[in-house]
């Protein structure tokens, strides 16, 4: 304990001995820590937004399908339970956020244009609890219920079809017997989505209306279930697997959309690489500072050794000096990062590059997100690598021969 006190006293005072050098190094560490956390929060915000958008663009956290549906997403591959049975099973188990929907490829035709789309036969109330796409109505109204006879289109699709709210369109698909199934619908609303691709791809109609059109009774092609956290879906996955039985395939979003699932892992790896790269740049300055500090104090170190201080205490003194410098720099850097991220919580408008961002699924507003794990990672990496970087000069200092060090000119 007595050693700890003298080591900390010496380390702290030596730190401020050449205050200009210490301040420069502190500034470097602070800016480095700020850059680590700030840039990571921007990247994390962008990726999380992409993930959330991707998950809320219909997948949910867990989905149930006929085992062949993913290879052939046609009306022939339907979930084994009816939508009424699904409602009873999942709601009965206390699961609140789920929706059973029909999701089939279809052709939509206005009086001027035709396009291939994905037709979603949905219960709008249940759909809203899981997915975001289709819920942001900008013109007209949303579907009233599963028996609503209208359709809701994306605004971009409406533009392409040169149609509008109030006009009629025709949706055409196939029934289970491979016969053409079609029906005329009135456009009751237009929705906007974060991604233009979603506005062009999805058409929402009432589930019961679509079931009648496709002649599939009360059957659905997909059940989407949402939990509390998209990162933690294992428990929900297991529960839904038990509830839905073995006839259907139950998969998490990471497997349903491998691009999104991979992105999460890539982002975690990117954060680590980013933090380590910044630290490597910092470490040169840190090591140089410590080497200079040790070089300037050779005689004093010799004196302390001559007076009976153990070499390990000299080692500890230099390491503590380095760690104090790192901790101070990290505190300032963390505060700077939080101070610069919090004012941006309402998002950064990057619509100037929106089209480019949309290519990989990002929206035009970037919301920085500070994740506790990223902040902890950045601080731990700096401290641990800083500790390792300081070992060499500290070791050299502790290896001095006192008699040589005292007489060093």
């Amino acid at each position, binding site marked *: 304990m*007595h050693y700890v006190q*003298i080591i900390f006293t010496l380390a702290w005072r030596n730190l401020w001995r050449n205050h200009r050098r210490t301040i420069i190094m502190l500034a470097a560490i602070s800016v480095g820590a700020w850059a680590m956390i700030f840039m990571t929060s921007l990247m994390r915000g962008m990726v999380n937004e992409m993930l959330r958008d991707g998950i809320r663009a219909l997948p949910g956290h867990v989905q149930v399908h006929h085992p062949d549906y993913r290879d052939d997403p046609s009306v022939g591959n339907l979930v084994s339970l009816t939508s009424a049975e699904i409602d009873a099973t999942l709601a009965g188990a206390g699961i609140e956020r789920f929706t059973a929907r029909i999701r089939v490829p279809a052709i939509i035709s206005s009086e001027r244009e035709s396009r291939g789309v994905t037709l979603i036969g949905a219960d709008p109330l249940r759909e809203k609890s899981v997915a975001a796409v289709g819920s942001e109505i900008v013109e007209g109204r949303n579907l009233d219920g599963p028996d609503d006879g209208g359709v809701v289109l994306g605004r971009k699709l409406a533009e392409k079809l040169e149609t509008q709210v109030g006009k009629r369109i025709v949706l055409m698909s196939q029934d289970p017997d491979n016969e053409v199934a079609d029906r005329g619908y009135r456009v009751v609303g237009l929705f906007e989505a974060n991604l233009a691709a979603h506005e062009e791809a999805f058409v929402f109609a009432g589930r019961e209306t679509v079931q009648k059109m496709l002649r599939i009774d009360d059957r659905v092609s997909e059940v989407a279930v949402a939990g509390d956290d998209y990162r933690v879906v294992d428990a929900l996955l297991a529960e839904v697997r038990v509830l839905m039985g073995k006839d259907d395939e139950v998969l998490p979003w990471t497997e349903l959309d491998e691009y999104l699932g991979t992105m999460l892992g890539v982002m975690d790896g990117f954060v680590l690489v980013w933090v380590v790269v910044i630290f490597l740049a910092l470490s040169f300055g840190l090591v140089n500072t410590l080497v200079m500090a040790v070089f300037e104090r050779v005689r004093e170190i010799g004196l302390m050794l001559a*007076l*009976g201080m153990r*070499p390990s205490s000299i080692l500890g003194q230099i390491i503590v000096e380095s760690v104090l410098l790192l901790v101070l720099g990290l505190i300032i850097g963390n505060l700077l990062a939080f101070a610069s991220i919090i004012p941006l919580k309402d998002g950064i408008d990057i619509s100037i590059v929106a089209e480019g961002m949309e290519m990989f699924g990002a929206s035009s507003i970037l919301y920085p997100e500070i994740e506790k794990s990223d902040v902890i990672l950045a601080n731990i990496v700096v401290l641990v690598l800083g500790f390792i970087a300081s070992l060499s000069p500290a070791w050299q200092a502790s290896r001095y021969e006192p008699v040589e060090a005292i007489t060093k000119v």
Partner: protein
Amino acid sequence: MTAVRCIDLCKTYRQGDQDIKALDHVDLEVEHSGFVCLSAPSGGGKTTLLNAIGGLDIPDSGEVWVAGQRIDQLSKGELAAIRLTQIGFVFQAYNLIPVLTAQENVEFVMQVQGVAAADRRSKSQAILEEVGLKGLEDRRPAEMSGGQQQRVAVARAIVSRPALVLADEPTANLDSKTSDELMELFVELNNHHDTTFVIATHDQRVMAYAKRLIKMLDGRIVEDIEQRAA
């Protein structure tokens, strides 16, 4: 009782192509409470002998005994412990730790020894008063004169009552008045606390204070004179 015993010490340094014999079969015995000056021209071996006695330098051959313990075969850690508990050092210059105040410098050795804070404080204040530095406890070395710094170094060397104090050219950077004051302080400590002093010097005035003067030349003891101290 013997405070220091050196038996057949040899130490050779390599300087360029030449071997320099810093210690050449040196035998020395210093009694407890002795006051010995090692005198030699530069390169005569006095600092090497002092360093060997202090466990700062390991001789090539021979034996060094301090307070009844052979120290020339000890590890670095064991030597550090001996220096910490048995020996007080006063060097020619760069004697103090610049970032510590006078009192903290004096307390340094006690702190490393693990002496309790209150005990350290009372002892350091008493010893600083004894060496005439009362009121300067909170000054850092840069705020003190050379003489005051050496007094702090002496206070640090003797505060934990070591059996032996080794001083290497302690007056080299001091004016004659301050040198005399410092030597009188050494004599007083030697008389009152029975501390053994071994001082390496080539200052005639310092030698005059010694009870025993050992002259060295080319790493050998050439004269060992008992004298009546000034």
